[in-house]
C-alpha cells in the first residue's frame, strides 16, 4: 500500500522570516508528500502537540534568528516528554557549522544551511523513512 510521507512544518520562536519554510513546503508537496504548515511563533509544545495530533512522520522547523541552540533542544525535550521521539526532527536556517554538528549530536536528524537545494531535503526524508524500518512502500 502506498503511504505518503507526512511532514509538519513550523516556525518556532519569534522569528517571522518564512520564505525558506514556504519554499520547502511547496517542494515537499511537489515531491508528493503531505505537508501541514502550522505557521509562525509556534512554541515547542504547540509544534509537538500538532505533530502527534496530525500523526506525522517528520517535523521540520526553520530558525533564522540565532535562537536555534535554545529552540531545537526545547523541541527535543518536549518530544521525549510526550513519547514522540520516533518522529524525525529536521530543520534549517542561519546556523553556523559547529552549532549544526552539536544539534545533530543532540538528536536533530538533519540541519540544512543556506544554499541547500530542496532536493536534499526530499532525499533526506525519503531515506530517513526507509531507515526508520518502515516496511510500507514509500512513494
Amino acid at each position: 500500500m502506498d503511504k505518503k510521507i507526512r511532514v509538519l512544518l513550523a516556525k518556532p520562536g519569534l522569528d517571522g522570516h518564512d520564505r525558506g519554510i514556504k519554499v520547502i513546503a511547496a517542494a515537499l508537496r511537489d515531491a508528493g508528500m503531505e505537508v501541514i504548515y502550522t505557521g509562525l511563533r509556534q512554541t515547542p509544545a504547540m509544534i509537538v502537540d500538532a505533530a502527534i495530533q496530525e500523526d506525522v512522520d517528520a517535523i521540520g522547523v526553520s530558525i533564522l534568528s540565532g535562537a536555534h541552540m535554545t529552540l531545537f533542544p526545547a523541541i527535543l525535550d518536549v518530544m521525549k516528554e510526550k513519547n514522540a521521539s520516533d518522529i524525525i526532527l529536521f530543520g534549517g536556517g542561519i546556523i553556523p557549522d559547529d552549532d549544526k554538528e552539536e544539534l545533530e549530536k543532540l538528536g536533530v536528524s538533519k540541519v540544512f544551511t543556506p544554499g541547500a537545494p530542496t532536493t536534499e531535503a526530499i532525499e533526506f526524508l525519503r531515506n530517513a523513512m526507509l531507515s526508520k524500518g518502515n516496511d510500507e512502500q514509500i512513494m
Partner: protein
Amino acid sequence: MFTKSFIARLKKKIVEWDKSAERFRAKKSMPRFFTVSGEDVDELYTPDSIKGGTDENYYDENIGLPGQYPYTRGVHQTLYRSKLWTMRQFAGMGTPEHTNERFKYILAQGGTGLSTAFDLPTLMGYDSDHERSLGEVGKCGVAVDTLADMEIIYKDIDLAKVSTSMTINSPASMVLAMYLVVAEKQGVDLKDVRGTLQNDILKEYIAQKEFIFPPKPSIRLITDMMSYCTKHVPQWNTISISGYHIREAGATAAQELAFTLADGFCYIESAIADGQDVDDFAPRLSFFFNAHSDFFEEIGKYRAARRIFAKRMKNKYGAKNPKSWLLRFHTQTAGCSLTAQQPENNIVRTAIQALSGVLGGTQSLHTNSMDETLALPSEKAALIALRTQQVIAFETGVANTVDPLGGSYFVEAMTDKMEAEAEAYFEEIDKRGGVLECIEQGFFQQELARSAYQHQMELEKKERVIVGVNDFVLEDEVIDIPVLKIDKNVERDQSAFCKKIKAERDNTKVQETLARLREAAKTDGNTFEVMMDCARAYVSVGEMCDVLREEWGEYSETQAAMSAS
C-alpha cells in the same frame, strides 16, 4: 524626444543588423537571458525601445532634469557633488553596551549615520525577562526594555549631530519615544533631532511578519506618531516605507516596487483620512529599497519609483509642495543574495549591488557584511562593508555626475517597464479592495511565495548560476572567516538588568502613565504623547505593548496568507 523619421530610419537599420547578427545566435553563453526577477532581456536596446519616445513631450514628462519633476533623474540637482549619500551601517547586538561600542567604532571609521538593529523580543514587544524571549535576547539585534537601555546605547553620542535610523515596526513609537527622551536628557532640542523610524507595519503583514496588533490600530499608532513629529520633531523621517523585506521574502523587482509604493499610498490615504494635510506630513516620508544583483533592473526600479511617486503625489493626492513629490530612499544590499559558501565572494556581490543603489540615486546606503549568512557581522566584516562604500564614493568617479546612466536606452526602457508593471499591480490591488484587503486575502503573501519558489527552482534546474552554490563549487570547503558569537551570558545579564530597573523605578508613575495609555488607546487621544511620558517613567516596551494587546488584541495570519502558493 526622437523624430518619427529618425525612428523609421533606425527600424530599417535594425532589420538589417538583426539579419546579420543571426549567424552568432546558434551559440549561447547562457541558457536564458533574463533578470534576477525572471524577466527576459532583449539582445539590444535602441531609441526605438523607448515607448512613446517620438512624443514631443516625452522627455519633459517622463525623464526631466535632476531635482525637477518627475524626478526620474534624482531628487537633487547636484546630488553627490554636494553631499554624498549617508553611509549608514545597520548594527546592534548583545547588550546595549556592546551596541554602544559598535556605534562608536562605526563613527570613528567614517560612518556618517547610525542604524539600530533590535533583537526579536524587542521587535515583538516582549521584555528580556519574558518567557517568550528565551533564547532570543540580544541575538539578532540589541535588547531594549526601558529608557535605561536607550541611555546606554547612545551614551556619549551627540544626538544633535548624528542622524539615527531605527529598524522597528510594531513597537516603533515606544522606542522612538525613548530615543527622544534620551535626546531631551542630553539637552538637545527636539527640533534638531534627525533620523528615521522604520515604522512600516504594512510590509510586516506582507513579508517580515513581525506584527503584534491588527492593521487598523497599528496604522493609528503611525498616524498618532506622525502628527506628534510634524509638530515637535520636524526633521524626523516618520516612516521608512520598506520594500527591502518584501524583496527578501521572495518578491521580484517589480513586486517590490509595486507593493512598497502601494503601502506608501495606503499610509498617505490614512493620514489624509485622519485630517492631516498632505503637505504637512508627506515631506517626512521616506522609502527603503533592496539592491539585488541584477544591476540594470535595480537602477530601473529606483528611477521608476521616483517617477511614480511624484506623479501620484501631485496628480492624485493634490500635494502642492514640491518636497511632497520627492521619493527619498535608503538602500540596503540584498541579504538573500549572499551565500554561505565561499563567503568572501559576498564582498564582490555587495559592492556591485551597492553601486546600483548609488547609480540609482539613493540618499543613504547600508552594505551587508560577507558573513551575514552565517551570523551577525564580525567587526572585520562590518569594516570591509563600510570600506566598500568608501571605495565607491572616493575611487570610482561615480559621484562626479548626476544620474550617469540617464539616457541609456536600456536603463530608460527598464525604467518604463518597471513603471508599467507597478501600475498593473496597483490596478489589481485596487480591484481587490486595497492593501488591507489584499493582506487578508493573502494576495501579496502568495505572490511572494510563488516568486520565491520559482527562483529556487531556476537555481535547482541550473537555469541560473549562483557562484559557489550550484556551480564553481569548492569540494570539502572549510569556512575560515571569523564568525561572531553572542555570549550566552547576554540573556541572563539583560534579563537581570530589566528586573533591576523595574524594581528601582517609581512604580506609581508607571501605573499612572500606563493607565493613561490605556485610556488613549480606548478613545481617540494621541497615543504617542502618552508614550513620551511612559518612556520618561521607565515603562518598558513590553508593558506598553501588553496594555495595547489587551485593548486591541493580537493579529495572526489568515490561512490564505500562510499558503505556500
